[in-house]
């Protein structure tokens, strides 16, 4: 199947989707398990780290970012980086209060 611009759609196998789905379930399990430990200040960081990994998988495979042109990857990267800067500058102060 081709686009107007002649650009090809990449076909992802069902096996890949299932692997990604299983990985997402595993990460969810990890989040729930880690929430049971008392990690104090690190707990939010760990939860965000796991969520970031899950987002990475969803963006790349389910939303096909992996197969897109680099301009879209750059746009997402810049936006997520800005969000990360805002989150770090907002929350780092909690550790020093």
């Amino acid at each position, binding site marked *: 199947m081709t686009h107007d611009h002649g650009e090809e759609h990449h076909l992802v196998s069902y096996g890949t989707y299932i692997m990604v789905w299983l990985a997402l379930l595993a990460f969810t399990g990890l989040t729930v398990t880690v929430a049971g430990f008392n990690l104090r200040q690190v707990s939010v960081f760990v939860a965000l780290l796991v969520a970031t990994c899950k987002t990475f998988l969803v963006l790349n495979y389910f939303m096909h970012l992996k197969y897109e042109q680099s301009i879209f990857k750059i746009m997402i990267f810049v*936006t997520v980086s*800005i969000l990360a*800067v*805002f989150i770090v*500058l*907002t929350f*780092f*102060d*909690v*550790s*020093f*209060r």
Partner: protein
Amino acid sequence: MGSGAIVEEQGPTVSSFLEYRGRFSGIFGWIFSTDHKRIGILYLFSLMTFFIVGVGIGVLMRLEHLTTGQTIMDPQTYNSFFTLHGVIMIFLFIIPGIPAAFGNFIMPIQIGAEDVAFPRINLFSWYLYISGAILALVTLFIGGVADTGWTFYAPYSIRTNTNVSLTLMAAFLLGFSSILTGLNFITTIHRLRAPRMGWFNMPLFVWALYATAWIQVLATPIIGITAVLVILERLLGIGIFDPMKGGDPILFQHLFWIYSHPAVYIMILPAMGVISEVIPTFARRTIFGYKFIAYSSIAIAGVGSLVWGHHMYVSGQSYTANVVFSLLTFLVAIPSAIKVFNWVSTLYKGSIDLSAPMLYALAFIFLFSIGGLTGVMLGALAVNVHVHDTYFVVAHFHYVMFGGTGFGFFAALHYWLPKMTGKMYDEKIAKIAWLLMVVGFNGFYFPMLLLGYQGMPRRYYDHLPQFHDGHVIATVGSWILVAGVFLMFWNLARALFKGKRTSRNPWGGTTLEWQVPSPPPLLNFVHEPEIRKDPYGHTGNDGH
């Protein structure tokens, strides 16, 4: 708007955009038009209307301080007035201000484009703006005007019985309008520049709008979400900001200022762009340090997005955060100072023409410098704690926002109105109005700097006797300032009906908009404009 004349200038005879009759006529010819010039004028009239309302409320608040004790209003009314004044001036006037009015009208012409990239979205953003404005004004009649101040700090904004939810909904809609304008400008500047117009062939006003547009797109959604969270907290009591439910009120301040400090740069950057246009035109010199001014716009947008914590030194955030935000705040002073030094260097050995736009631009440099330097003082932790929530802060941001952006807006009005309407105002009256405004402004706000330093708190409807003299001087200053503002508006309104026809290029401007007729034709250019390498080198008859 009386100028619908056929424009006969050098080159072929063309109808102006005011003369053009499309599918609709009368008022519908304006509110259904997707022409960037008509939308710019729609914005201009809308936001000037709200500016006059905001000025009226401000003057009444000042009048309350003419005597000690209650003068003309009770404390609750005063609380509602400063909230309404803030919301109207910030969300309805100064944020859309220069980009929505002059950016819409002038920017596409300056880059050699026929319109913005998304003309319908452009009109839609005006409708969102008007919807937000109506919603904000509806609170006057339903549920009582919010009494939180324009900052809506939690937990008070969650608990007050006034109509905070509706006001926040208005801010949400206005934010959407701002995002769409920003998105439109980014796309227009990237995609619709005339052939051969590179990034460094663009006028500095376009650079300023470009930097502003990125802040609009990236920062505004945060205030939108925050507004929704407060509304949900009020309606459902979910406990995000309310400490009684385990929420964090400091988180609200973070989220609010992540947008609202960069919003200060949304307000000032376009005004800096205007000044970068006016100064070289009236100093008859090439702008000094073009690339530094262009880059400093981007630097202000970037670093300015990371300094919000300086509004929160006494909020309970950690000392470490205070130090980090203080350092970042000092850094953002550098690109601002680069601009001021470059403007002053442009004036050096220039052949200075003190026409009205130039006078407003010079007042901008003077007043913005006071605002900027008091801002640096406020960035210092010790001073900030001393003057926090006093008149010093109020005077500081009025020097930046009114003395800076306001005078930049007036400079733009006097500079570009002849281009927009083809009519010229009375130069002598414009200068008298300018003088009244400069004297009135300093008479109004300079005593407030001193009062604040002495400890006069902001948002109080009354004052102690030791502050009385300063209050009286400031109140008298406000009368002079308002007299100047109304004289200016009267002079400009009169020009629309009785002003003399002006030429294509009354100021000897060297950017593309001065090469097309005044007022411009529907699609701006009769022939494809010839782009010069020097952005300020368009002195010929390129638009014909």
